[in-house]
């Protein structure tokens, strides 16, 4: 990895020279065999996948480490360490892919790269330094695990937080380049930077993509971690191993699910900003040649919702006492299936600009577009509520509250959920009878209702089930193996979705490198159709998983080599304890305030 960093820095320092020579250079060179576009596409997407992984997983690892620290539950600390190990293994691959991507740009798209450099050169340095800082911090975080344990655990957690801050900062810098290509800002008519580079960084889509990506990366990290656990579960030899990886998969999925629920909102925000930047682009995206893409996106998202719920339901079977809740399952399936259908219903198929104008009854397709999204908003909010209900039922599956006010509490909870559902549906339907301007405001009420209900239900649930009577412990490891395939399905689907959205993000620019400023005049200027893109995405996704498997396998080899040494042993999963279903901090078990008590 150090090598990669050095290569990267060297490359950076030669860039200005490259830029000077650019006048003599051709605008494009052709990559042998597959062409430059495919080469850049594949490497960029792979790099992004890995970057998302090393960004998302540590966020999630530090959260888990904090839980372990505060609760003294050694399992969490072990798990966190395990995940940082996975990140660590993926670090150098990410850097190498990044360097490769840079080579491809400099070599095959010299004119484009010179232009980007003319605007963003100062940020390259920031990027390199941040990358360096992150590598270093993660290094210390990982290798300092034992050293900074016990009373020094706070410092260790601080390191974890710090590396995540660096990681997020890297994301922000890289996003400024990508978003500038979509929605350039801060430049004059000839494309030259007008004032400071900040205006170019802080362009229209920067913040929305920062938010959308950050959340998506957490989900991604969670699903990959869960898939890893599933893989280990399926290959496990002992019950103890099965129990451990069952639990790990559950936690990974829990984190993924929590972040996943907010993604749709972030997505709408992003969509809206794209429209606000340029309506033509917005229309290309939702109603133009990309309109079919959103059908596939909807299907993938439907699979993700269905899959997560199914996993929770299967998980209930390992919890004695959950039989009480089985009868809700068909209703939830019904709501999900219906929501899914609405969500996947095409609204604006390929339309011309004029049709798009006519659609909203005004000259403002933004409003028209968001208007027809009213039904989808409703559907997605209902799916979120249902998924949340699944989770609540799962949480209480083996617990019976001993509080005297439990009856009242339950009623309030159901009323809160019911009210939220009514609000969501009401505004969804009412939305059809009002002007589009008013309608946009409605989606805010819908979101507030859903978030409000989640808040109320959890606020009651946590005290209500504190010290609850257990109907039996969770039998970790006894979950049906098909549930593990669901976890793998989620990871594969999500990764594929990332590839698809990567295509959306780049394809939306059509024949522009930098939208409206720098035209793609290469032989690849045509933006391919969805089938072609899908083939490409599948190939990249396969390559990604193959690489990940390989890296994990290497990691596993190292582990075996150290067997019996001073490696981090997994603490035996705790089989007892009524609060096992609860991934939120349970009040302290034998608190040690640090590393695994099992260690000598």
């Amino acid at each position, binding site marked *: 990895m150090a090598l990669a960093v050095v290569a990267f820095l060297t490359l950076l320092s030669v860039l200005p020279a490259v830029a000077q020579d650019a006048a003599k250079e051709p605008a494009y060179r052709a990559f042998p065999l597959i062409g430059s576009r495919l080469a850049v596409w594949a490497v960029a997407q792979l790099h992004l996948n890995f970057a998302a992984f090393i960004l998302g997983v540590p966020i999630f690892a530090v959260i888990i480490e904090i839980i372990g620290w505060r609760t003294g539950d050694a399992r969490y600390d072990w798990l966190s360490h395990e995940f940082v190990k996975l990140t660590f293994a993926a670090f150098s691959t990410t850097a190498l892919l990044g360097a490769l991507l840079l080579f491809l740009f400099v070599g095959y798209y010299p*004119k484009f790269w010179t*232009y980007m450099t003319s605007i963003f050169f100062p940020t390259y340095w920031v990027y390199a330094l941040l990358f360096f800082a992150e590598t270093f911090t993660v290094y210390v975080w990982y290798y300092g695990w034992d050293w900074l344990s016990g009373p020094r655990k706070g410092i260790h957690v601080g390191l974890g937080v710090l590396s995540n801050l660096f990681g997020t900062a890297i994301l922000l810098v890289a996003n400024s380049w990508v978003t500038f290509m979509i929605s*350039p*800002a801060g*430049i*004059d*008519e*000839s*494309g030259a930077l007008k004032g400071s580079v900040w205006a170019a960084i802080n362009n229209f889509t920067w913040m929305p993509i920062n938010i959308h990506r950050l959340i998506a990366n957490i989900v991604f990290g969670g699903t990959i971690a869960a898939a890893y656990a*599933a*893989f280990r579960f*399926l*290959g496990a030899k002992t019950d103890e191993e099965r129990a451990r990886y069952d639990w790990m998969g559950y936690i990974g999925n829990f984190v993924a699910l929590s972040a996943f629920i907010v993604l749709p909102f972030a997505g709408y925000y992003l969509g809206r900003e794209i429209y606000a930047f*340029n*309506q033509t682009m917005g229309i*290309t995206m939702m109603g*133009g*040649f990309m309109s*079919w893409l959103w059908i*596939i996106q909807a*299907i*993938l998202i439907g699979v993700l919702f269905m899959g997560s719920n199914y996993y929770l339901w299967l998980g209930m079977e390992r919890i004695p006492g959950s039989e009480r809740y089985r009868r809700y399952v068909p209703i939830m399936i019904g709501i999900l299936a219906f929501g899914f259908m609405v969500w996947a219903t095409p609204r604006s198929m*390929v339309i011309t600009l004029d049709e798009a*104008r006519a659609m909203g009854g*005004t*000259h*403002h397709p*933004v*409003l028209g577009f968001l208007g027809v999204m009213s039904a989808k908003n409703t559907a997605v909010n209902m799916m979120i509520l249902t998924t949340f209900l699944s989770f609540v039922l799962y949480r209480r599956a083996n617990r019976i509250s001993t509080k005297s006010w439990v009856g009242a509490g339950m009623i309030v909870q159901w009323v809160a959920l019911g009210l939220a559902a009514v609000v969501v549906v009401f505004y969804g339907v009412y939305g059809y009878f009002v002007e589009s*301007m008013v309608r946009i405001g409605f989606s805010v009420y819908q979101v507030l209702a859903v978030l409000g209900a989640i808040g109320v239900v959890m606020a009651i649930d946590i005290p209500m089930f504190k010290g609850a009577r257990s109907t039996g412990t969770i039998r970790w490891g006894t979950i049906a193996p098909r549930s593990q*395939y669901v976890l793998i*399905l989620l990871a*594969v*689907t999500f990764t*594929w979705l990332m590839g698809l959205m990567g295509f959306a993000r780049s394809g939306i620019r*059509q*024949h522009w490198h*930098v*939208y*409206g*400023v*720098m*035209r*793609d*005049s290469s032989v690849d200027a*045509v*933006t*391919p*159709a*969805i*089938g*072609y*893109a*899908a*083939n490409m*995405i*599948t190939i990249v*996704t*396969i390559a990604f*998983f193959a690489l990940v498997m390989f890296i994990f396998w290497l990691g596993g080899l190292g582990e075996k080599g150290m067997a019996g040494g001073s490696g981090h042993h997994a603490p035996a999963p705790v089989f007892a304890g009524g609060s096992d279903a609860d991934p939120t901090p349970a009040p302290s078990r034998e608190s040690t305030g640090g590393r695994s008590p099992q260690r000598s």
Partner: protein
Amino acid sequence: MRVPVAVKVGAFALFVMGTYTYYANSIPQIQSKPPAELSLEGGNVTPAQLVKAGEETFKTKGTCEICHRIGQKGTRAPDLAGIGSRAGKVKAGQSAKAYIIESLLQPGAHLVEGYPNIMPQVDKPPIALNRSEVWALTAFLESLGGTVDVKLDDIPKTVGAGAAGGGATAELKLPGDAKAGEAIFTGKGGCIACHKAGKIGASPVGPDLSQIAKIQTPDYLMRKILDPAGAGTVAGFPKGVMPPMFGQTLTAKDYMDLVAFLMTLK
């Protein structure tokens, strides 16, 4: 024999991705082709091909027909029939070729009698033709009554090279709110009394503004609203009819919103 887990999981993952891929290939396939941008540099083109390409540009990307017609007076601009021969006699010592190129690149350098200076530079946004296109267009105009003798080298190298990639239509981001601007157009500003803009309005008193953003810069629109006479009176329309007091009656915000709205008309 037991199937190894890796194989089972791998097959499952491939199946999942295969399903998505199959589905994506089974729905309608739409490519997005870049709008044909002419590049004739380096290639061998016959004058006939050049003229044909120029005519195409005239009708499509050039948007010339929104103002000009050939064989009749255009909505906003002179008839271009016979320009190929007329062009040589406009200024003493200037060839037809030179005059035509000048008309395209510096439309204000010489104004046709009775017409205001409203023609945009064709190599700048919003029209933003590239060098090849200007070359072909010149050939086409020459062919209208004259001889085609223009060479690529007659077109300055700087043409269309403004933006890094050439052929730019830099999307200017105006601070105004187009939606509010539409309300000003139909309400407070009263523009609708004289102008048509797409689906709204029908009045023939002033020029149809339905495609105004295709042919005009925000600059021009701003000037025109504040100082209609100073910006030049569009040919074929009465002078002094467009009210001159919008600078007083509209607030700064109204004004920006209005311009933002006009810029959506394309």
